[in-house]
């Protein structure tokens, strides 16, 4: 019921409310009226009944007084029968003994203990008791029951009247409330509709004009209207603010864009400037490099002619002048060489050429180069190498040599007494593939001021107050060293105390350990330069004639009989025909490739164990295992050098060294070996301006024949002057040149520079 009421719309609710109120009010009023009427009716009927009863009683007093009770009953019947409302009557004598009775329907009736003149309405009947008197004296009592039929009909009439009034009033109130409820519901409905519209739309419309009354709904309506007006005002303000904000954002964006553009243009300018600067630097470096080269040529002439003049002039004063000229020229040349190096580094022209080197051998070589100088200055020289350092490290030998050369050269230069030490230590190993190395060069020289630690690595910087005249040098050595170390991925640092000495420390990280073990045998390789295999036969299978010819040339003096085959098939035939001791097999050949040929040869029982060496041009990672799986015993990578071939052949063929007198590098120059004054003087002769000029020329041109000539000349001079180091160098260079080993030639030519430096220090 309540939920039904809740779900009604407002106007129905109001109507229902008003109707319910009027219904209850009316019902209450009518009910009270009905009760009042009934009470009044009851009083009336009681009065009537008592009158009737009194008459009956009066009529019976004779019978009572004379105890004529039978007659009394007859009389009673007669009397009551004429009054239809009476259904029962009973007479009591003065002693309250019932004496006569009248019963209309002969039904059993229930009597109540009433006092005289008392009445009781029960079940639509009126019970009434009254005294019977004679001459004012009570002589008995009469009890009557009447049907209060008149009352009932009265009540019924009343009920009918009430109902009809109710109906009329309700109908009337319905129409009235339908009209009246509009005064309340209409503004509320409009408000509700308005709020719904408000919540559904983004726009705020001001509530429209309405007949506003002064009651609370009218106040609510007008307040709401005020509120909407304010809301709209705020909305407008907000919109304005938003617009302002948007405008500001747009302006800000514009200014930002402008700034961005400016920044971009600035950026472009900067990039352009940077490029220009870089180009300028590069140009500068290139210019320097070119200029250095250009300067060197006339300088060489100056030095060369000075040398000539020295030999021609006897006058000691003039000779000393010429010595000054030559010394200055040499210094200038050195300076130019250093500038050239630095320029190359800064121009990014230096590229590392890492390969397997034996650092032990390098240290020995450098030590032997400086031995002369050290002995002339009466210094002690110590070399300590950590034995755990692998022999085969992948490093740029030329550059490492240059670094060590610079550091040790400096150490010797700035040390007048005491000792110079070179220590190579293993810092850590990463698996078997990589190592970290630390190289210390320690001296007991003049030392470096703490403030100059960083300065000394800058170009053209020497320690403040350094006596340039005394020590000479360009001030570029450490700068170049530092750059080189950094290019190699390491670092360099210095610790020093004035007048006590310095320690330069180089750390090289992640130095790869070569898996190519051949380097270990490098010494032996060189040892077997002129090796003899005593009438052994080898077969070379290669479709390119020149390749076969080259190898034949390499092995010309080795006492080997070389048979050529033009393809795989030919190789099989020739093998069967000549029965060689070893086969060099090219992989890529027409008709039948090397792999097929090898398999076929292995299939022949006689040759199942014959050593077959693959020659491959493959740039892919070569692995001995792979070739062994196919059936090869070993492999050589193109281009094949003589050393490589010999080195490989000695593994498989019996051999002997024919020339024992041949230079053997393993005859090491120990650091303590004392160089004779004679030797040093010879060295100075060797590094004459003529030789140096030739050196420059061959370095610049790179023609093999020129190099050969240069090497031969150097060899003859060094042998004449009994200078072992240079003789060794010359022979190596000659050998490399004869075998067109370009890399080796480059390395050796650089080395020449170092040897020269070490002697001139």
């Amino acid at each position, binding site marked *: 019921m309540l939920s039904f009421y809740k779900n009604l719309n407002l106007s129905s609710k109001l109507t229902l409310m008003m109707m319910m109120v009027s219904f209850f009010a009316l019902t209450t009023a009518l009910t009270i009226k009905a009760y009042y009427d009934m009470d009044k009716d009851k009083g009336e009927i009681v009065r009537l009944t008592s009158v009737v009863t009194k008459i009956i009683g009066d009529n019976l007093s*004779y*019978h009572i007084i*004379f*105890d*004529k009770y039978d007659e009394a009953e007859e009389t009673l019947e007669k009397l009551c029968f004429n009054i239809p409302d009476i259904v029962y009557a009973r007479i009591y*004598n003065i*002693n309250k003994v019932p004496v006569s009775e009248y019963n209309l329907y002969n039904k059993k009736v229930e009597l109540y203990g009433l006092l005289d003149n008392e009445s009781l309405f029960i079940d639509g009947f009126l019970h009434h008791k009254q005294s019977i008197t004679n001459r004012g004296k009570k002589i008995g009592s009469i009890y009557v029951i009447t049907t209060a039929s008149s009352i009932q009909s009265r009540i019924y009439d009343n009920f009918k009247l009430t109902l009809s009034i109710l109906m009329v009033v309700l109908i009337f109130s319905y129409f009235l409330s339908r009209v009246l409820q509009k005064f309340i519901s209409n503004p509320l409905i409009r408000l509700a509709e308005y709020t719904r519209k408000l919540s559904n739309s983004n726009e705020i419309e001001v509530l429209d004009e309405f007949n506003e009354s002064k009651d609370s709904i009218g106040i609510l309506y007008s307040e709401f209207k005020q509120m909407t007006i304010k809301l709209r005002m705020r909305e407008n303000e907000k919109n304005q603010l938003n617009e302002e904000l948007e405008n500001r954002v747009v302006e800000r964006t514009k200014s930002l864009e402008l700034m961005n553009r400016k920044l971009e243009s600035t950026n472009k300018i900067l990039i352009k400037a940077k490029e220009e600067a870089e180009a300028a630097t590069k140009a500068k470096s290139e210019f320097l490099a070119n200029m250095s080269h250009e300067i060197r040529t006339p300088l060489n002439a100056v030095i060369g002619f000075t040398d000539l003049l020295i030999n021609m002039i006897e006058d000691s004063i003039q000779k000393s002048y010429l010595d000054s000229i030559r010394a200055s020229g040499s210094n200038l040349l050195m300076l130019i060489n250093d500038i050239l190096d630095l320029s190359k580094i800064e121009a990014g022209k230096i590229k590392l050429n890492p390969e397997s080197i034996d650092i032990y051998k390098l240290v020995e070589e450098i030590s032997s180069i400086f031995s002369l100088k050290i002995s002339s200055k009466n210094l002690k020289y110590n070399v300590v190498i950590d034995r755990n350092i692998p022999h085969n490290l992948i490093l740029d030998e030329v550059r490492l040599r240059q670094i060590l050369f610079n550091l040790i050269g400096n150490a010797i230069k700035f040390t007048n007494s005491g000792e110079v030490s070179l220590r190579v230590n293993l810092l850590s190993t990463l698996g078997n593939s990589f190592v970290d190395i630390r190289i210390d060069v320690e001296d007991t020289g003049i030392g470096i001021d703490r403030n100059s630690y960083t300065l000394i690595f800058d170009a053209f910087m020497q320690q403040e107050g350094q006596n340039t005249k005394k020590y000479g040098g360009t001030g570029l050595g450490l700068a170049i060293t530092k750059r080189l170390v950094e290019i190699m991925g390491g670092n360099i640092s210095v610790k020093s105390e004035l007048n006590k000495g310095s320690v330069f420390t180089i750390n090289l990280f992640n130095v790869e350990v070569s898996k190519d073990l051949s380097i270990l045998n490098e010494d032996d390789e060189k040892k077997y330069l002129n090796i003899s295999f005593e009438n052994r036969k080898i077969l070379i299978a290669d479709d390119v004639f020149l390749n076969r010819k080259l190898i034949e040339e390499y092995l010309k003096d080795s006492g080997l009989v070389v048979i050529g085959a033009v393809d795989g098939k030919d190789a099989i035939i020739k093998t069967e025909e000549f029965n060689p001791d070893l086969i060099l097999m090219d992989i890529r050949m027409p008709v039948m490739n090397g792999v097929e040929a090898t398999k076929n040869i292995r299939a022949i029982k006689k040759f199942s164990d014959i050593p077959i060496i693959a020659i491959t041009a493959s740039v892919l990672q070569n692995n001995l295992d792979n070739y062994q799986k196919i059936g090869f015993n070993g492999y050589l990578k193109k281009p094949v050098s003589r050393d490589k071939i010999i080195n490989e052949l000695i593994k498989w063929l019996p051999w002997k060294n024919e020339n024992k007198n041949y230079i053997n590098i393993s005859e090491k120059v120990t650091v303590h070996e004392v160089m004779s004054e004679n030797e040093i003087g010879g060295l100075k002769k060797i590094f004459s301006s003529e030789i140096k000029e030739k050196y420059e020329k061959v370095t610049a041109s790179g023609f093999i024949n020129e190099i050969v000539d240069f090497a031969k000349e150097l060899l003859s001079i060094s042998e004449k002057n009994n200078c072992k180091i240079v003789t060794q160098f010359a022979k190596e260079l000659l050998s490399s040149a004869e075998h067109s080993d370009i890399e080796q030639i480059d390395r050796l030519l650089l080395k020449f520079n170092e040897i020269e430096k070490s002697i001139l220090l």
Partner: protein
Amino acid sequence: MKYYLLSILFFFNLILSQSVDEYDLKAVYFNRISEFINWPDSIFVKKDGSRKFILAVYGEDPFEGRLRTIYNNYKILDMDVEIKYLDELDDINECHLLFVSSSEERNLKKIVKQVRGKPILTVSDTEGFGEKGIMLNILADSKGVHFVVNKTSEKNSAISISTRFMKYAKVVE
């Protein structure tokens, strides 16, 4: 209480032995009849101020003197009762209720004439006396007691008889 005792007496007489004593019953009836008779109130007041109901028997006393015994304890209209026995007509004036004995049939005319206009109720128990001028004649048969009222005599007297009574009595002229 009084009525209760009377009623018992009545029942004894009526039901148990009608013949026990008819006059005891009739004696009690004087009391009851008085309830329906209107006397002028002043006649009961004596010279000394007291009130007394005077019941007189004229002629032979059929009650054999028991009236005095009965009304010694009972009252009529709330008054003490004095019983008088009269032989002289002149003495009739001094009573309120005069019982005329059956022996006085000859003197009936004189008696009726004597009480006319006076506040005296004449009562008898003899058949025919009512028609002859006695105001109230009490008769009894097998059905019980019933009354005869002489309306003329009543009209001629200074008393009145209640209609409640007359309604159930036989009325003669």
